[in-house]
C-alpha cells in the first residue's frame, strides 16, 4: 500500500525503460510511412518524462511502442530489463479521451482492470474509493460517466489507470480535450498522485508548458521521420505550484524548447 500523504521522493537510480534504436514503419510494405526512426530514450524509476512535438511527429507511436500495443520494426524496448513483447500489467495507460464504459458506474469503471486481470474485486474496492476520493470524486461512485463533465471523466480514467498500482504510467495527451482551467487543475492533481508513489511517468503532449510544468525532462521529437532530437532538463523545484508557470526559468525553458522545435522542424 502506498502512503496517503505525499512524501519526498527518493532519488531514482534504477533504469526503468530503455528504448534503443527503435524504428517503426506503417504501410502495406512496412516501409511506406516511417513513424519513428532510430529513437533512443531512457527513463529511471520514479522519473517523469515528457515527449513534446507537433502533430504527426510519431510521439503517440512511441508511447504505443512502449505500451506494447505495437511492435517495433527494428530496435529494442526494455521494461525493467526485460524486452517488451506486449501489454503488461505493471504499465497503465491514460488516453486522450477518458474511454469509460457508459454502462458501468464510476466505481465499476475504476475496477475494470481488476476484473480483467481476474483479481478479486473485494480486495480493491477500498482502494478504488480512496483513489476517487483523492481525485475529488467522492459521492459520485455510483454515477454513470455520462452524468460527469469531461474533466471528471478524465479523473476517473486516471483512477482506473492507478488501481492496479502500476510501475509505469503512460499518458497520451490526457488533458488536450479539456479547457485551460480544468487542464491546470488536473495537471496539479496528477503531480500530487504521482509524487505519493514511485511511479515512472511518460507524458506525450503538444503543449510545451504542460510538458515543462509536469516533468523532470522534456524530450523533443521532430517529424518526418519521427525521432527524439534533444532532451531538456527541467530545473524547477518540486513540488510544483501553479505560480511556477510564471517564473522566468519556466518561461525561458518553454521558449528554448519552442525555438528548437521551430529550427529542427525546418519551419
Amino acid at each position: 500500500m502506498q502512503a496517503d500523504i505525499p512524501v519526498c521522493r527518493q532519488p531514482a537510480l534504477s533504469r526503468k525503460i530503455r528504448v534503443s534504436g527503435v524504428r517503426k514503419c506503417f504501410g502495406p510494405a512496412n516501409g511506406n510511412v516511417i513513424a519513428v526512426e532510430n529513437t533512443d530514450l531512457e527513463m529511471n524509476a520514479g522519473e517523469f518524462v515528457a515527449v513534446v512535438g507537433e502533430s504527426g511527429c510519431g510521439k503517440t507511436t512511441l508511447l504505443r511502442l512502449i505500451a506494447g500495443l505495437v511492435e517495433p520494426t527494428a530496435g529494442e524496448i526494455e521494461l525493467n530489463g526485460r524486452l517488451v513483447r506486449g501489454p503488461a500489467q505493471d504499465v497503465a495507460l491514460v488516453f486522450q479521451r477518458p474511454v469509460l464504459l457508459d454502462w458501468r458506474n464510476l466505481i465499476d469503471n475504476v475496477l475494470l482492470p481488476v476484473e480483467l486481470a481476474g483479481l478479486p474485486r473485494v480486495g480493491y474496492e477500498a482502494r478504488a474509493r480512496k483513489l476517487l476520493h483523492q481525485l475529488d470524486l467522492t459521492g459520485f461512485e455510483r454515477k454513470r460517466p455520462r452524468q460527469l463533465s469531461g474533466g471528471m471523466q478524465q479523473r476517473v480514467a486516471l483512477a482506473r489507470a492507478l488501481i492496479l498500482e502500476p510501475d509505469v504510467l503512460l499518458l497520451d495527451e490526457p488533458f488536450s480535450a479539456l479547457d485551460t482551467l480544468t487542464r491546470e487543475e488536473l495537471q496539479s492533481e496528477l503531480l500530487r498522485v504521482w509524487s505519493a508513489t514511485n511511479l515512472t511517468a511518460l507524458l506525450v503532449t503538444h503543449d510545451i508548458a504542460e510538458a515543462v510544468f509536469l516533468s523532470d525532462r522534456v524530450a523533443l521529437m521532430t517529424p518526418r521521420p519521427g525521432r527524439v532530437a534533444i532532451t531538456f532538463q527541467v530545473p524547477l523545484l518540486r513540488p510544483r505550484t501553479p505560480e511556477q508557470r510564471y517564473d522566468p526559468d519556466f518561461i525561458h525553458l518553454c521558449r528554448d524548447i519552442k525555438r528548437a522545435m521551430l529550427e529542427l522542424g525546418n519551419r
Partner: protein
Amino acid sequence: MSNSQRRLRLFSLEKLCSLILFLAMLVGWELFVRLRELPPLVLPAPSLVLSELGDHVSSGMLWEHLWVTLTEVLLGFIVGSVLGISLAVVATSFGPVGRVLRPYIIASQAMPKLALAPILIIWFGFGLTPKVVITALISFFPLFENTIAGWRAVDPAQLELFRSLQASRWQLLLKLRLPWAIPFLAAGFRLALILSLVGAVVSEFVGANKGLGALIIAVQGTMNTPLMFVAFVVLTLVGIALSLFADLVEYLALRWRYGDDD
C-alpha cells in the same frame, strides 16, 4: 426524458382521440353492414364478430388454436435467435469463416423463406416441426444481421483499452462486445418476433389442422366468415402482445445500457 414521460402517462388527449376514432370506425362498419344488408359471408358486422368471439373463447376452441400458433412462434423464435446470434459470433470472431459464408448467407436471406413451406411439409409432415423450422428461419436473419452490426459498433478506443489490459477473448466478448450489441439485439429481437408470427400463420395455411392460420383456411372452406374475423382479431391481439413484450425487453436493455436519467 419528456418522451418517456409522455408515453407513461395513462390518459391524454391523443389517447382519447384514438379511442374515439376506433369506436367511430366500429359504429361506421356496423351501420354500413346493416344499411346495405350485407350477408355475414361477405362482411360480418362487428357485433356478430364480438358475439362469435365470446362463444369460441368460452367453448375453449380458440385457445387450442392460439396455443398451437404461439408454441410455433416462440419455439421458432428461440431456435432462430440462438442460431442467429451464435453463428454471427462465429462469423465475426473468425474472419475467414465469415467471408467464406457471406455469399450463402446473403442468398438465403434474399430467398423468401415462406416459399419453402411446401417442401418442409413434405420433409417434416403436418405437425409442429415444419412451422417451427419456418419461424426459426425467419427469426434467424434479423438477429444474425443485428449481432454483426452490434459487433462492429464497438468504440475502437475501448477495444484498445481492453487490449492494453490484456483482456481474454471471453472477457472481450462478454464485457465489451455484448454491451455494445445489446441495443442492436433488442431491435433484432423485435423484428424477429413480429416476423415469426407471420411465418407461423402462413406456414399453417400451407398444411395444418391446428393453429390460427389453419383455422382461417378451414373456415374459408365452410364459408364461416364471422369465425375468420374472430381469428383476425385474435391474431391482431397476439401481434400487439408480442410487440409490447419487445417494447419491454428493449426498455430494459436500453435502461441497463445507458442508465436511468436523474
